[in-house]
């Protein structure tokens, strides 16, 4: 206990055991990268990019889409899709219980949120992974919602955008989860056949089965700054090759350097950049947003 805290009479001391928190929950929050104390409302106005160090704080899937779509334009897609424990999988805990815990924690049914809406006036179908839900891992429910969203894009002749953040395949669904990679990729092939553009925005972190399928298949791949993106996690690689990994290995900047993403875009610019790109790639002329006429 610090000398300062000792001065406070014990009956009004509020520390809760060992758990040390830099800042109280609520109005204030802390940047996980530079530890700066930030005013939450201001941070949210800044798309949850730390104003001090430009760190892009991880977003839940729903919040991600909330920032992406124009206010009150999102209609959810595939909200009925629920996960199922087909293999009756059990490790130290039952998969069924893990699902219930994750649903309780996030308020979502599974790790993908989908919807259609407008982005600076451009109609789009977009999906976003939720890393808080079992590491954003892809099981059958995620694969199905992704495919159903691609269907919606094809039926309505809309472009498709995905925000990826995932540890990869969902272990507890074993081969069924592996095959979601094939399923989502095949759905994207249909989108391509229909002549509709697909942009994938890779966010921190994107690994394994998600990176080796839908996330790397964008007609345009955009990465957020300093996101970690790769096939195998750095720890496993280090154990396999027994070498220290090069500086900046598997960061967005590394992927740009090696030619696997088209650009790195600051989160605050995403709506502008994505809508500008989509307007060029969408075959049918997009009705101009009235703001553009005003200029």
């Amino acid at each position: 206990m610090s000398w300062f805290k000792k001065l406070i009479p014990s009956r009004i001391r509020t520390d809760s055991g060992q758990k040390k928190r830099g800042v109280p929950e609520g109005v204030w929050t802390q940047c996980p990268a530079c530890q700066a104390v930030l005013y939450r409302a201001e941070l949210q106005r800044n798309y949850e990019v730390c104003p001090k160090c430009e760190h892009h704080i991880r977003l839940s899937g729903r919040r991600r889409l909330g920032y992406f779509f124009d206010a009150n334009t999102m209609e959810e897609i595939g909200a009925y899709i629920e996960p199922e424990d087909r293999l009756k999988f059990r490790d130290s805990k039952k998969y069924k219980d893990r699902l219930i815990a994750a649903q309780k924690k996030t308020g979502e049914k599974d790790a993908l949120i989908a919807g259609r809406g407008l982005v600076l006036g451009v109609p789009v179908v977009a999906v976003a992974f939720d890393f808080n839900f079992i590491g954003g891992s892809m099981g059958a429910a995620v694969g199905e919602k992704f495919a159903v969203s691609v269907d919606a894009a094809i039926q309505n002749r809309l472009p498709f955008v995905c925000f990826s953040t995932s540890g990869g395949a969902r272990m507890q669904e074993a081969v069924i989860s592996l095959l979601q990679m094939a399923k989502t990729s095949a759905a994207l092939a249909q989108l391509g056949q229909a002549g509709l553009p697909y942009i994938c925005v890779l966010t921190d972190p994107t690994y394994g089965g998600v990176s080796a399928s839908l996330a790397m298949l964008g007609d345009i791949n955009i990465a957020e700054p300093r996101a970690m993106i790769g096939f195998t996690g750095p720890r496993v690689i280090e154990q396999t090759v027994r070498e220290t990994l090069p500086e900046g290995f598997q960061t967005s900047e590394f992927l740009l350097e090696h030619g696997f993403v088209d650009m790195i875009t600051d989160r605050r610019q995403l709506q502008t950049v994505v809508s500008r790109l989509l307007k060029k790639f969408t075959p049918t002329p997009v009705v101009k947003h009235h703001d553009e006429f005003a200029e």
Partner: protein
Amino acid sequence: MHLNYLDFEQPIAELQAKIDELRLVGKDSEINITDEISKLEGKIDDLTKSIFSKLSDWQVAQLARHPQRPHLLDYIPLLFTDFDELHGDRVFADDKAMVGGTARFNGEPVMIIGHQKGRDTKEKARRNFGMASPEGYRKAERLMLLAEKFKMPIFTFIDTPGAYPGIGAEERGQSEAIAKNLLIMSQLKTPIICTITGEGCSGGALGIGVGDRLLMLQYSTYSVISPEGCASILWKSAAKAPDAAAAMNMTAQHLLGLNIADEIIPEPLGGAHRHPQEIASRLKQVLTEQLAQLQTMSTDTLLQQRYKRLRSIGTAEQNA
């Protein structure tokens, strides 16, 4: 060939050792021991049958990567004629963990693509233990497009512990190389038959595993990760691999039940490595039948069914 026995085959190994010993003794003396030997051989047969009739999933996983299990280059001369190996991805290198080339199957030109593991230490290293790098998947992609162009059916053979987790593999886009194959294979305008001959783990297996049919040898496995990998992630200990193998439902029998595998090719008693010719001839028969079925379909029907099949996985339709 001297057989290599797995842990759970030890009782069989002991009996075999006894027979070998008797044979040695028999050579030197005049005593007739043929009866004794044939009795023991009968006993070995019964014992093998009994052990192999109740294999655990973990034991199947060990058989799938038995050191003497036939690999792709062992199967090719038994299944095909006129094989010409084709090398390289035309971009960076030739990945020796992935073998590809054209051949004739029952006289008809076909494309063959598959993982190759090594047998001895030197060959294992050269083949990188069957773990392909991006250039392997890109070679596969090149050969698949070639097959489509010349209307050749494609046979892929899966046997890998996973795609290679190395620095160079990441730098050259392991994810992108696998992802691209998944997308391309879903639309290739030629029949694709995938066979899992040994272990099929992770995206490394799936990267050449999207097709119209999935066949599995009786003691092959297919899953999202190796049992050791799954155990170290979920149980925090690789020693729990037997539990992980069981939990993942990774054997051919389970996959048939899940409607993911279409057919199981029964292996000779004791596993494919005991009689490579026999397993190859059974496999050839199944491949012939399956290919004939696929070749009756128009390209449109073929592609529609392939897509339907991929879309059904993990939905209520798959359970039907």
